[in-house]
């Protein structure tokens, strides 16, 4: 029925949020969650609520900032945007992530052959 979905690996959610804000510009929490689910195409079992602690974490680290605005349903909503420090962090983590992925696939490729 539904495709096999996996838990979000530790640290990956923060990176996904940063990337989303980097490409989409300021977003409220729901917008970020929707974008992440669309990108995952059903491969991710994301409890959407978990992004709020992630947003707080990122804001505390100074990688994102927030401001109050109005959402499409005309409600007061908090919009998050990425900071300059956040972009720098995104670049570092994206690089680290792709290196990890490359290494993992090399290792897994070796053992299966």
């Amino acid at each position, binding site marked *: 029925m539904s495709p096999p979905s996996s838990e979000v690996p530790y640290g990956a959610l923060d990176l996904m949020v940063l990337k989303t804000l980097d490409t989409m510009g300021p977003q409220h929490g729901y917008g970020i969650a929707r974008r992440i689910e669309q990108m995952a195409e059903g491969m991710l079992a994301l409890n*959407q609520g978990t992004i709020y602690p992630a947003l707080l974490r990122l804001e505390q680290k100074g990688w994102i900032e927030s401001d109050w605005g109005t959402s499409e*349903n005309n409600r007061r909503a*908090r919009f998050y945007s990425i900071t300059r420090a956040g972009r720098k962090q995104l670049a570092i983590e994206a690089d680290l992530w792709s290196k990890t992925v490359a290494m993992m696939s090399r290792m897994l490729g070796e053992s299966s052959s």
Partner: protein
Amino acid sequence: MSLSSIVRRMLSRLPGARHEANLDDEVRNHLELLAADYERRGLSADQARLAARRAFGGIEQMKEVHRDARGLRWLDDARRDIQQALRALRRAPLFAGAAVLTLAVGLTAVIAIFAMLNAFMFRPMPVDHPEELVSIGTGPDRHVSLPHGVSFLDLQDYRQERASFVDLLGYNVEVAGLSVDNTTERVTMYSVTDNYFTLLGVQPAIGRLIQPNEGRTRGDAPVIVLTHEYWQLRFGGDPSIVGRAVRLNGRPFTVIGVTSQSFDRAHSLIRPSAYVPLWMHDDLAGDSALGSILESRESHQIWVLGRLQPGVSLSQARAALEVKAAALAREYPVTNRGFSLVVIPETHARPNPNIGPFFRVAAMVFAGLAAVLLLITSANVTNLLMARAVAREREVALRAALGAGRGRLVRQLLTESVVLAVLAGIVALPVVVQALSVVGQGMASTTSIATIRPDFSLDTRVLGAGLLLMVIAGVVSGIAPAVMAMRTDLNGAVRAGGRGAAGGEPRAMFRSALVVVQVALSLMLLVGGGLFVRSLDRARQIELGFEPADLVVASVITTENGYDATQRLDFYTNARNRVRALPGVEQAAWIEWAPLATVSEGGPVWLEGQRPRTGEQAFMAASASIDADYFNTSKVTILYGRAFDDRDVKPARQVAIINETLAGHFWPNQNAIGRSLVFRGEQVEVVGVARNGKYLFLWESPRGMLYRPLAQAPSERATLMVRGSRNSAGLITEIQRVFRDVDPAVRAYDVRTMEEHLVRESGGFLAFAIGATFAGVFGAAGVLLAAIGLYGMIAGRVAQRTQEFGVRIALGADRRTILRDVLGRAIRLASIGIVGGALLAALAARGLTTLLLDISPFDPLTYIVVSLFLVGVCLFASFIPARRATRVDPIIALRAE
């Protein structure tokens, strides 16, 4: 408003609460948008809402995680701020040391005062629901000008008032000789109503306590309960004490139990060793001339506590008792008319029901003085922080430029001053403990009436209040410098290289204002101290009616040894004769109670055949039995007639000597000698008239006094007055030795010089001496700190203007002009402070009125002397830096540029 709702409202103001509400908004919004999406995909509204909840996951768990992250952040920040503050302080040890020591002075004062107030006013009695307890006393009446106890028969009637009170208990504090195995010790004990322990809810440690209906009638088995502490002290906690036979004032009693360790008394000052049923009071008292207190409505000596019924307010209970009292006044007009009841919470009646209300005023005054001292110290630390802020301007500006938020920076700076205050508190605590033990020991004594021992231990309430005071002191000292640091122009500060180019002028203004405030506050303290000193001085000038110099007193209570009247007289005669034979002793004589002692006697007096009718009030006089030589010894002048002599021993012809007031009351402008009076129902012939004196209080208005010869009225207690020219310490030891020689079982107490007696008795100089000491110490500390503050400010300005002075001197300016310039500024500031302080003091001094003796709170002399003194101190403090200004070497000053 209940405490918990106040706390909740305060919490809702915290930043955390705002975060919580914001997060709620976000989540609600999120769910709505998500549900709307599902609806667009074809789900019904209900299904969409459910699906949205499912996709969102556990809301509460998420919030919990969110909250944790927020909390940790706050803690993290606080920890980092504290570490940073400690590092910064370590880099500036001189500044840190000065600030910590200064704050420690103020904190010591407030924490010590609070610990004392705690013992007297806040600490709940360790019993069930202490908040339900109220103290019930008799208001000022024609005998006693202060609130005091209740009579036994009235108490029985008030106890019927069960709609408002669960019940009322009564206790009487007394001293008795407790003999075990032929050794007698004087103990303080409470004679209590049978419901005392049950109403308070106290449990025995072993055995049982006095129970309702126990010892209600004379002749019931005499029982005694020991306090836990006394059981440990005298019997080493031996459990076989229960059932043991002991003797009280020579009469057999059985120990039935020991109170629990946590409770020993219903009084904050007087520590009992034992309890006996109140109904045995008369047996213990011996053949007191006063008669039974158990059959009296006249003798208001029982202290009463009531426990309110649940839901009954204090004012309802008061109203109910007043109705009862009015009914009693109608029924017993002779004894019960002309006074009102004092019904107040138990904590307000401390340390003594009779001085509770007065004590609260005094407590507020001293707490106020301590708070003013803390403000002065805080101002000094503010001053130090301002000086430091100039040096740190660059550091702060840099941090701001690097992106630290302003709120964050203010918090960092405030953390630093709070850390200073907490360090000061840590320095202050041991000093507080030391001070409390000194004051506690000073107050502790075993006197003729009780064992006094206040409990000033530091409990959690004191420590909590201390911590709160530290934080407040830190914030008060630090807030202005922190805010000013934020106001400075950052760019300018970074560029100026820390010279403080920007914001210098407002800062200097502020520091001047601080000095003005300090001078004003210390003037307030000095005025307070000055007024107390003036009161003490006035008290010392009061004509006592006797000559207090070169007198030593020593008291005994002969009931402790089970003496009868003959044995008493024998002891008095022997002891007096042997003391008189001591080298250096001129005179010695007994009196029932020394002037201004806490105990006194008295009774109604009328002319023969003119007994007051029902409803009429008899003239009340104080009375004392005396030795024949009393007037020689104390140097009270006999105006007419004669002193007592050997003729006055026969019981047939009862005689008395009265004072001017008593004589004037009955025989105005006539000769009183040879006339007859009825005193306490007994006819006495007046043989002499003595000069008026002070008997109960220094500040009493003239009071009637009647002396009886000891031989005709041998009192149970007596004080030997000894006039001698020799060294008093030696004399005191000798007198004690003589008493022991005459009868080893007799114990003398309060053996001391008359000077000491007057200073230690509450009817004497005690209150004024305490007031003058406390206010004096606070005032001295305040002035010293203000002087340091002024010195620091002037010195700082002189340092800043060194170049200017250099130039002026180089150009030939007169050094005296420069001196005048610098001093002028100091004097201007001090004058503003003094005028402001005088106004403040005059406003606050009204609260002192009830504590002062015969002196106006606006006494001009005090204000003038104190102001002049403060001007002198300010001049001295600024003269040192001012002189430095005149000695500036122009060459060095200019080269420094």
